[in-house]
């Protein structure tokens, strides 16, 4: 038995070597013969648990782009999707699995900034390029030179939306409301507070809530009693939609300015008429008059039966950016892929014209939108 085991091990080793040689050859020989560059890319997303709706949109975006990229034939990507359940420790073990046993060339995800703060350093230390498609907190790409993101940080989006709202409605006094148990919503709040102070707005009160809370009436009643000109609310759309519904119901009709997480058709789906007057700044605008955007929306709707949200669009673009970089790198090598990614400039995606800055962060112009007549429209 023992001898057999050894024999099998030897054969396995030999096979392994062969496979690897093959991969190396295929990679090198790719260009002249037109053979695709084969690469395994890991995805860490929330498949189950409280944030599963985000993970669903994100993985749908990846899969849609995967089909296009593989059909084109320059590169052939194999996706390995892992579930983080929205927990940092789970995301970390998923990353370790992808890096060490799956030997992926790069990682897309994880979904939450909270998770990226833990996973980013691990990938960076292992020299694996990692690109967040939905992390918008501060200090993400500063983790290290292998960490990228294509999701616009709140620090870029929020000043745009608040600036426009203040001008249009002549806002003087505002109330702030945010989720205090998430890096994403907390950092959005920090930016809102900073911008409000810079614009010399009077902050009447700062209220907090927790993810998954059912009842926001206590906070909203307090805010309503102070009679603000507007409410700046840093929340993800799931909580945000409910907050809007409950606020409008109790008679708080002032404009709401939301963070990036508020930008999803789901806000309107959840809050219905209560979403009217919500202002967001966002890289993604699904009704933009752009053939690329229209084609993406139609394709996504056909495949998944619903309109793509920001998370799906960002994932879709991120995958194409990754595939382009892989093609530019010419081989499935982690370090070469990193350099190719960092060189990405003026990529024309469904979000618009996209480049990485020197710190591998987003360079892009946001759209400021308002909900009117049951859909997002450009806010002027």
């Amino acid at each position, binding site marked *: 038995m023992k001898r057999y085991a050894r024999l099998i091990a030897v054969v396995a080793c030999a096979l392994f070597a062969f496979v690897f040689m093959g991969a190396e050859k295929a990679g090198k020989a790719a260009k002249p013969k037109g053979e695709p560059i084969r690469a395994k890319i890991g995805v860490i997303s929330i498949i*189950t648990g*409280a944030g*599963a*709706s985000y993970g*669903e949109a994100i993985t749908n975006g990846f899969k849609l782009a995967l089909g296009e990229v593989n059909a084109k034939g320059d590169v052939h990507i194999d996706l390995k999707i892992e579930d983080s359940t929205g927990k940092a420790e789970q995301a970390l073990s998923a990353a370790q699995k992808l890096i060490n046993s799956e030997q992926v060339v790069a990682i897309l995800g994880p979904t939450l900034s909270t998770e990226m703060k833990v996973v980013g350093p691990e990938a960076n230390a292992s020299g694996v390029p990692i690109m967040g498609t939905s992390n918008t907190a501060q200090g993400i790409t500063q983790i290290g030179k292998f960490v990228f993101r294509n999701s616009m940080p709140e620090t870029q989006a929020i000043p745009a939306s608040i600036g426009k709202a203040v001008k249009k409605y002549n806002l003087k006094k505002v109330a702030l409301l945010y989720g*205090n148990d998430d890096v994403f919503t907390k950092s959005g709040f920090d930016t809102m507070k900073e911008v409000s102070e810079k614009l010399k707005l009077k902050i009447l009160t700062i*209220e*907090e*809530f*927790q993810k*998954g*809370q*059912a*009842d926001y*009436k*206590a*906070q909203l*009643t*307090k805010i309503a*009693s102070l009679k603000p000109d507007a409410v700046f609310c840093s929340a993800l759309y*799931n909580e945000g*939609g*409910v907050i809007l*519904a*409950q606020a409008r*119901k*109790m*008679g708080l009709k002032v404009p709401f300015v939301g963070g990036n997480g508020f930008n999803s058709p*789901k806000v309107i*789906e*959840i*809050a*219905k008429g209560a979403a009217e007057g919500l202002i967001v700044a966002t890289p993604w605008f699904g009704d933009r008059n752009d053939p690329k955007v229209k084609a993406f929306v139609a394709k996504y709707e056909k495949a998944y039966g619903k309109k793509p949200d920001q998370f799906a669009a960002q994932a879709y673009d991120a995958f194409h950016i990754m595939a382009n970089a892989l093609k530019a790198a010419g081989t499935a090598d982690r370090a070469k892929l990193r350099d190719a990614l960092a060189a990405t400039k003026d990529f024309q995606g469904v979000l618009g014209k996209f480049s990485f800055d020197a710190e591998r962060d987003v360079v892009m112009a946001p759209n400021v939108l308002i909900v009117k007549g049951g859909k997002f429209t450009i806010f002027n």
Partner: protein
Amino acid sequence: MFLEQLINGVTLGSIYAIVALGYTLVFGVLDIINMAHGEIFMFGAFVGLLVVSKAGAPLPVAFLGAVVVTAAMGLLLERLALRPLRGRPGASHLASLISTIGVSILLENLAHKLFGAGNHLFETPFAEISFKVGPVTVYLVQVVILFISLLLMGGLALWLSRSRAGKALRATAENLETAGLLGVDTNRMITATVVIASAMGGVAGVLVGMAFNYINNQIGLSMGLKGLAIIIFGGMGSVYGAMAGGLILGLSETFVVAYGSSGYRDAIAFVAIILILLVRPQGLFGQAPAEARR
């Protein structure tokens, strides 16, 4: 603002109380904590939602539908997860706790598959009816929730203390074997208890949907944990304890936000519970030694 916050607190507290009543009923008879109660409650909410918004049926039908489905789930829970473990030699108290946790995980994921992730708007014309009392807007739903929770509490207390079935139930709770020897069909009593508790969960689910405007497949968990804290706080197995505990938790959570800091909402509410338990370890309405319960 005080009156509005008072109404918010009472509404929240009444909902907590109804959830806690379901826990306390099962605990009082079976001495087990039914961890699946929160998820059954969540299913009640979804059935109500489907009946009202998808089928467009009137509200009473939603309650009826939720009660029928959750009662059936209670029946299945008892048959499949509780009865096989009951009276088995060597089966510990914890066995049924674990089996109900299993059921709760199953139900949560089943709801994810059936209804999808994320929040669903719970829209009924009934939830929009409001009237003004002085400067304060009161929604009819809020009154109904308080009314239903008081009705359920009163009805349960009366049923347990006065009716024949209630007496049999208490006998079963006191001692399963003796009650069986004296001619009480203990299996039927236990099944009835679990079914009634589950049906109450269904009612609570629909009420939550109306009060908060939305539901998702995670509300069972968050509401369930609150319900659990309340029965410990109010006194295990006590009907009045569940009611009082629910109201106190709901009011304290609301007023912490209103006059304190919203970031400490849960912290202060639970610190208050711990303090009360330090003074009265058996809970507000609990009786000191476990054997002498009721």
